[in-house]
């Protein structure tokens, strides 16, 4: 049973475009929703995160939109750059659950110059 469903599996965007990656969850006990960025040969690194008491969080070109009633959240990358080409993972953490994260399957983003 996949607790966090992520789409699309892969995404190709032109430089300057908007990249959008979506995630959905079922467990209402999740209280923390991070996005991780992973470059080839490296470990994932935290990009941006949100808690369910806010509907949007923005850091530079990266924005998380959160819809609590729909149990969905998405990552928007504005003005996408070739350096953003990476695999992106959404994740969720259950409150009181030993801090462990449950990850989506990942989206491979390619930004063409």
């Amino acid at each position, binding site marked *: 049973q996949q607790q966090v469903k992520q789409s699309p599996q892969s995404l190709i965007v032109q430089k300057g475009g908007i990249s959008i990656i979506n995630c959905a969850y079922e467990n209402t006990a999740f209280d923390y929703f991070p996005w991780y960025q992973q470059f080839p040969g490296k*470990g*994932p690194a935290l990009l941006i995160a949100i808690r369910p008491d806010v509907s949007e969080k923005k850091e530079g070109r990266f924005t998380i939109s959160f819809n609590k009633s729909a149990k969905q959240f998405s990552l928007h990358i504005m003005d996408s750059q070739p350096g953003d080409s990476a695999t992106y993972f959404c994740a969720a953490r259950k409150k009181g659950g030993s*801090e*462990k994260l449950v990850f989506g399957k990942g989206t491979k983003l390619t930004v063409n110059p």
Partner: protein
Amino acid sequence: DAGITQSPRHKVTETGTPVTLRCHQTENHRYMYWYRQDPGHGLRLIHYSYGVKDTDKGEVSDGYSVSRSKTEDFLLTLESATSSQTSVYFCAISAGPMNTEAFFGQGTRLTVV
């Protein structure tokens, strides 16, 4: 980068042999995790630890055991390696409830032949 060192970084082993992967941290974080990353599956939790000698199973724990005798070290052992355990293994650490970010190591690429 957070002080996480995984060793070895690459290993090729034969089916049926035991293998131990090591994760060493210098951050004094309470929580440590082992994930495996496979194409199409994202990151899946194998085992985690919430303190010295305190460990618990994740979603794909069969065939794996762990030990944590010191805060800084978390060992993952494949009792009898199988080809299905060929994967990239990531260690992660987290400070706890008030500090939510999980930091990942560089990964260990394990091939079972």
